Protein backbone atom coordinates (compact mmCIF):
# COMPACT_ATOMS: atom_id res chain seq x y z
CA UNK A 1 0.00 0.00 0.00
CA UNK A 2 1.24 3.47 -0.86
CA UNK A 3 -0.63 5.15 2.03
CA UNK A 4 -0.52 8.96 1.70
CA UNK A 5 1.45 10.28 -1.26
CA UNK A 6 2.55 13.91 -1.54
CA UNK A 7 4.15 15.66 -4.46
CA UNK A 8 6.44 17.48 -4.97
CA UNK A 9 9.00 16.82 -2.19
CA UNK A 10 10.74 20.16 -2.67
CA UNK A 11 9.80 23.38 -4.40
CA UNK A 12 11.14 26.90 -4.61
CA UNK A 13 8.71 29.65 -5.56
CA UNK A 14 9.15 33.30 -6.25
CA UNK A 15 6.97 35.80 -4.40
CA UNK A 16 3.61 36.10 -6.14
CA UNK A 17 3.75 32.75 -7.92
CA UNK A 18 1.08 30.10 -7.43
CA UNK A 19 1.30 26.35 -7.08
CA UNK A 20 -0.65 23.27 -6.06
CA UNK A 21 0.60 20.70 -3.60
CA UNK A 22 -0.80 17.29 -4.43
CA UNK A 23 -1.98 14.73 -1.90
CA UNK A 24 -3.50 11.33 -2.56
CA UNK A 25 -4.41 8.43 -0.28
CA UNK A 26 -5.35 4.88 -1.17
CA UNK A 27 -6.80 3.77 2.16
CA UNK A 28 -10.38 4.91 1.49
CA UNK A 29 -10.15 7.37 4.36
CA UNK A 30 -12.93 9.89 4.75
CA UNK A 31 -10.93 12.56 6.54
CA UNK A 32 -7.99 14.41 5.04
CA UNK A 33 -5.91 17.25 6.45
CA UNK A 34 -3.26 19.75 5.50
CA UNK A 35 -0.76 20.88 8.12
CA UNK A 36 2.19 23.22 7.98
CA UNK A 37 5.21 22.80 10.22
CA UNK A 38 7.53 25.64 11.07
CA UNK A 39 10.68 25.09 13.17
CA UNK A 40 9.89 24.85 16.88
CA UNK A 41 6.19 25.53 16.36
CA UNK A 42 4.59 22.13 15.97
CA UNK A 43 1.97 21.31 13.35
CA UNK A 44 -0.70 23.85 12.46
CA UNK A 45 -3.91 22.77 10.70
CA UNK A 46 -4.56 24.68 7.46
CA UNK A 47 -7.66 22.97 6.03
CA UNK A 48 -9.42 19.67 6.45
CA UNK A 49 -12.08 17.65 4.66
CA UNK A 50 -14.59 15.16 6.05
CA UNK A 51 -15.43 13.69 2.66
CA UNK A 52 -15.64 14.42 -1.05
CA UNK A 53 -17.13 17.85 -1.67
CA UNK A 54 -16.78 19.02 1.95
CA UNK A 55 -13.93 21.16 3.22
CA UNK A 56 -13.44 23.45 6.19
CA UNK A 57 -10.88 25.90 7.53
CA UNK A 58 -8.39 25.00 10.19
CA UNK A 59 -6.27 27.25 12.36
CA UNK A 60 -4.21 29.00 9.64
CA UNK A 61 -6.16 29.01 6.34
CA UNK A 62 -5.24 32.46 5.00
CA UNK A 63 -3.43 32.35 1.66
CA UNK A 64 -4.51 28.79 0.87
CA UNK A 65 -7.37 27.03 -0.86
CA UNK A 66 -8.41 23.39 -1.08
CA UNK A 67 -10.83 21.21 -2.96
CA UNK A 68 -11.94 17.59 -2.54
CA UNK A 69 -13.58 16.24 -5.66
CA UNK A 70 -12.78 12.59 -4.89
CA UNK A 71 -12.21 10.54 -1.73
CA UNK A 72 -8.60 9.94 -2.75
CA UNK A 73 -7.32 13.42 -3.59
CA UNK A 74 -6.98 16.60 -1.54
CA UNK A 75 -4.85 19.24 -3.28
CA UNK A 76 -3.69 22.42 -1.52
CA UNK A 77 -3.47 25.57 -3.63
CA UNK A 78 -1.20 28.50 -2.79
CA UNK A 79 -2.20 31.71 -4.52
CA UNK A 80 0.24 34.65 -4.62
CA UNK A 81 2.98 32.96 -2.60
CA UNK A 82 4.55 34.99 0.21
CA UNK A 83 7.76 34.40 2.23
CA UNK A 84 5.56 33.65 5.29
CA UNK A 85 4.42 30.51 3.48
CA UNK A 86 7.91 29.04 3.56
CA UNK A 87 7.35 25.87 5.55
CA UNK A 88 7.11 22.10 5.45
CA UNK A 89 3.64 20.96 4.44
CA UNK A 90 2.19 17.62 5.50
CA UNK A 91 -0.94 15.98 4.23
CA UNK A 92 -2.61 13.42 6.49
CA UNK A 93 -5.64 11.19 6.46
CA UNK A 94 -7.73 9.20 8.92
CA UNK A 95 -10.69 6.86 8.62
CA UNK A 96 -12.84 9.04 10.83
CA UNK A 97 -12.29 12.40 12.47
CA UNK A 98 -12.85 11.30 16.01
CA UNK A 99 -9.82 10.16 17.95
CA UNK A 100 -8.32 8.17 15.11
CA UNK A 101 -4.66 7.90 14.21
CA UNK A 102 -3.41 10.12 11.44
CA UNK A 103 -1.42 8.73 8.55
CA UNK A 104 1.00 11.36 7.24
CA UNK A 105 2.54 11.84 3.84
CA UNK A 106 6.28 12.41 3.54
CA UNK A 107 5.95 16.18 3.32
CA UNK A 108 6.73 19.02 0.92
CA UNK A 109 9.51 21.47 1.70
CA UNK A 110 8.46 24.82 0.20
CA UNK A 111 10.60 27.92 0.04
CA UNK A 112 9.23 31.26 -1.16
CA UNK A 113 11.97 33.71 -2.12
Amino acid at each position, binding site marked *: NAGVTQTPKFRILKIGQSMTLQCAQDMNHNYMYWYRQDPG*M*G*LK*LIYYSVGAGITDK*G*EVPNGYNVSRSTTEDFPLRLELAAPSQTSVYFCASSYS*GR*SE*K*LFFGSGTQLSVL
Partner: protein
Amino acid sequence: QQPVQSPQAVILREGEDAVINCSSSKALYSVHWYRQKHGEAPVFLMILLKGGEQKGHEKISASFNEKKQQSSLYLTASQLSYSGTYFCGTEYGANSKLTFGKGITLSVRP
Protein backbone atom coordinates in the same frame (compact mmCIF):
# COMPACT_ATOMS: atom_id res chain seq x y z
CA GLN B 1 -5.43 26.25 22.42
CA GLN B 2 -1.97 24.75 22.01
CA PRO B 3 -0.97 22.18 24.66
CA VAL B 4 2.26 22.75 26.57
CA GLN B 5 4.96 20.10 26.38
CA SER B 6 7.78 19.64 28.87
CA PRO B 7 10.69 19.44 29.17
CA GLN B 8 11.82 21.19 25.99
CA ALA B 9 14.62 18.74 25.32
CA VAL B 10 15.90 15.46 26.75
CA ILE B 11 19.30 13.85 26.34
CA LEU B 12 19.68 10.23 27.43
CA ARG B 13 22.17 7.41 27.32
CA GLU B 14 21.01 4.10 25.90
CA GLY B 15 19.13 2.13 28.52
CA GLU B 16 18.03 5.17 30.56
CA ASP B 17 14.42 6.12 31.17
CA ALA B 18 12.58 9.35 30.41
CA VAL B 19 9.18 10.90 30.99
CA ILE B 20 7.79 13.60 28.73
CA ASN B 21 4.66 15.56 29.50
CA CYS B 22 1.77 17.28 27.76
CA SER B 23 -0.61 19.57 29.61
CA SER B 24 -3.61 21.71 28.82
CA SER B 25 -5.53 24.46 30.57
CA LYS B 26 -8.77 23.22 28.96
CA ALA B 27 -10.61 19.99 29.66
CA LEU B 28 -9.29 17.25 27.41
CA TYR B 29 -11.22 14.66 25.43
CA SER B 30 -8.16 12.83 24.18
CA VAL B 31 -4.38 13.05 23.89
CA HIS B 32 -2.43 11.77 20.90
CA TRP B 33 1.31 11.10 20.75
CA TYR B 34 3.47 11.13 17.59
CA ARG B 35 7.20 10.80 17.00
CA GLN B 36 9.00 12.51 14.15
CA LYS B 37 12.53 11.78 13.02
CA HIS B 38 14.51 14.49 11.27
CA GLY B 39 13.32 15.02 7.71
CA GLU B 40 10.52 12.49 8.03
CA ALA B 41 6.78 12.52 8.63
CA PRO B 42 5.30 12.16 12.11
CA VAL B 43 4.48 8.58 13.06
CA PHE B 44 1.60 7.61 15.33
CA LEU B 45 2.43 6.23 18.78
CA MET B 46 -0.67 6.28 20.92
CA ILE B 47 -4.08 7.77 21.68
CA LEU B 48 -5.40 8.12 25.22
CA LEU B 49 -9.07 8.83 25.63
CA LYS B 50 -11.11 10.31 28.44
CA GLY B 51 -12.45 7.39 30.40
CA GLY B 52 -9.31 5.29 30.14
CA GLU B 53 -9.34 3.77 26.65
CA GLN B 54 -5.97 3.58 24.90
CA LYS B 55 -5.11 2.82 21.31
CA GLY B 56 -1.63 2.33 20.02
CA HIS B 57 1.83 0.99 20.33
CA GLU B 58 2.21 -2.04 22.58
CA LYS B 59 5.74 -1.09 23.61
CA ILE B 60 4.89 2.49 24.53
CA SER B 61 3.52 3.37 27.94
CA ALA B 62 1.53 6.51 28.66
CA SER B 63 -0.90 7.93 31.17
CA PHE B 64 -3.76 10.43 31.03
CA ASN B 65 -4.67 12.31 34.18
CA GLU B 66 -8.14 13.74 33.50
CA LYS B 67 -8.20 15.82 36.69
CA LYS B 68 -4.91 17.54 35.89
CA GLN B 69 -5.55 17.65 32.11
CA GLN B 70 -2.15 16.12 31.58
CA SER B 71 -0.62 13.18 29.78
CA SER B 72 2.81 11.62 30.24
CA LEU B 73 4.74 9.37 27.87
CA TYR B 74 7.11 6.90 29.51
CA LEU B 75 10.17 5.79 27.57
CA THR B 76 11.92 2.99 29.40
CA ALA B 77 15.24 1.32 28.59
CA SER B 78 15.71 3.81 25.78
CA GLN B 79 17.20 2.74 22.47
CA LEU B 80 18.96 4.80 19.82
CA SER B 81 15.84 4.47 17.66
CA TYR B 82 13.83 6.45 20.24
CA SER B 83 15.59 9.65 19.18
CA GLY B 84 13.35 12.22 17.53
CA THR B 85 10.82 14.92 18.28
CA TYR B 86 7.75 13.89 20.24
CA PHE B 87 4.53 15.77 19.66
CA CYS B 88 1.35 15.56 21.64
CA GLY B 89 -1.94 16.51 20.08
CA THR B 90 -5.07 17.27 22.05
CA GLU B 91 -8.77 17.11 21.34
CA TYR B 92 -11.13 19.15 23.50
CA GLY B 93 -14.38 17.58 22.44
CA ALA B 94 -15.84 14.92 20.19
CA ASN B 95 -15.94 17.28 17.18
CA SER B 96 -12.76 19.27 17.77
CA LYS B 97 -9.69 18.88 15.62
CA LEU B 98 -6.25 17.94 16.92
CA THR B 99 -4.12 20.78 18.23
CA PHE B 100 -0.44 19.90 18.41
CA GLY B 101 2.14 21.07 20.92
CA LYS B 102 5.55 22.45 19.91
CA GLY B 103 7.29 19.16 20.44
CA ILE B 104 10.06 17.78 22.64
CA THR B 105 13.40 16.78 21.16
CA LEU B 106 14.75 13.55 22.61
CA SER B 107 18.29 12.40 21.86
CA VAL B 108 19.56 8.98 22.87
CA ARG B 109 23.34 8.64 22.89
CA PRO B 110 25.35 5.38 22.79
